[in-house]
């Protein structure tokens, strides 16, 4: 099993490190032909406008969409969540548009409003998960085929839609590996299908 981490801009190294500590092989993805080698893809945090522009210029959109439609699991964190969304409020920026969600960028305010908070994520068990929110988006609306996995103060911050998952915080910046393990389980399941 091999996971790709989109490595155009942002915190891709941290995702690779977490995956490696879970015993999983992970590679940086910068070109579309590298997508042939992988069983799952993580789109990391960074600036969604920067990542989206480079995905467009270096022609990564079509192949990711077709692999995801073919069942490959994709997980987006923060900017990755924005890029996965079908609708982004007040923005025409390039995106994958795979998930039936509406995202609001920088929804908590500017950097001085960035924060850490404990989250209750029932899928991961009873222990709280420390969410690191950095100029984070929220998921403002979801369609009925989208499962809400976590909320903070009434705002949706983690969702799943079949083989696609997104969260607005940064599980790669903390030591808790449960979310990455959960994603790996999704990949294993998809490979057995």
């Amino acid at each position, binding site marked *: 099993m091999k996971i790709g981490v989109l490595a155009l801009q942002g915190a891709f190294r941290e995702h690779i490190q977490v995956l490696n500590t879970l015993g999983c092989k992970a590679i940086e993805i910068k070109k579309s032909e590298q997508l042939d080698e992988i069983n799952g893809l993580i789109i990391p945090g960074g600036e969604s406008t920067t990542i989206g522009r480079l995905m467009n210029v270096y022609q990564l959109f079509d192949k990711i969409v077709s692999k995801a439609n073919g069942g490959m699991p994709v997980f987006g964190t923060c900017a990755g969540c924005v890029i996965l969304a079908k609708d982004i409020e007040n923005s025409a920026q390039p995106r994958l548009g795979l998930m039936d969600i509406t995202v609001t960028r920088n929804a908590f305010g500017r950097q001085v409003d*960035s*924060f850490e908070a404990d989250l209750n994520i029932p899928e991961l068990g009873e222990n709280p998960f420390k969410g690191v929110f950095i100029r984070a988006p929220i998921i403002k609306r979801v369609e009925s085929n989208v499962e809400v996995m976590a909320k*903070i103060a009434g705002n949706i911050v983690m969702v799943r839609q079949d083989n696609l998952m997104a969260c607005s915080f940064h599980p790669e910046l903390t030591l808790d590996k449960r979310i990455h393990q959960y994603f790996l389980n999704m990949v294993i399941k998809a490979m057995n299908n």
Partner: protein
Amino acid sequence: MAEKGTWLVKKGLAEMLKAGVIMDVTTPEQAKIAEEAGACAVMALERVPADIRAAGGVARMADPTIIQRIMDAVTIPVMAKARIGHFVEAQILEALGVDYIDESEVLTPADDQYHIDKHAFKVPFVCGAKNLGEALRRIGEGAAMIRTKGEPGTGNVVEAVKHMRTVMGEIRRLQNLPTEELMTAAKNMAAPYDLVVEVAKTGKLPVVNFAAGGIATPADAALMMQLGVDGIFVGSGIFKSKDPVARAKAIVAATTYYNDPKILAEISRDLGEAMPGIEISNITPEQRMQERGW
């Protein structure tokens, strides 16, 4: 409960900027161009370093109106510069809501001995460094991100290369020292002992490290990335060149594909003239911005 301004969220924003380009801008229009070209953040200024150098006199924090208009124009993070040691300029920038403060040698220092206590702020800081001791002193004071100083406003990458090689060489040296020699190493480089021990153990700076000061071409950006920096600041290099849009896009792509000479060759074509450069030996030592900071 939600906790704001923690070390993790300060350092975390710098992690999100990695492999990206932060561009100096002086107007909302330039900020828009930078954002559309793929900048991961902009630095809001009244004048770019090349113009500050040409104007002479005392360079200070930009007018809040200029910074605010740039913040209103883009969705990416906006940074702004405060003078070294000028903690009130920093308080004003924090009150404005900028996303990062650069305590910068590009402006005229306000204190000839002390830097800002950066732990006292919720907004994170980036600081320049020529060597490892300077980088670790700034981190000790609370900087959540480091950049090379280079020589700003020159379009000449040689000083940024020198500073990056110096930092990396000093890190490699620390890694090879036996533990009992680390205290003397800390004394000699005038750096906090616990940070020296951490660097000796991990082989890297405890925070993100960008290149700054003299980067003018895609090849310059890729050179700094191959030397091991995490990302790129471009000051005068974009809006002092003939075709800022093309150059901005090319430097963004070069920072991502820094290891791919074929792509670098493609994106380096037809960019028009780069900014005019200045040979470092033509700048007298007292006019070198990199000598500011203690």
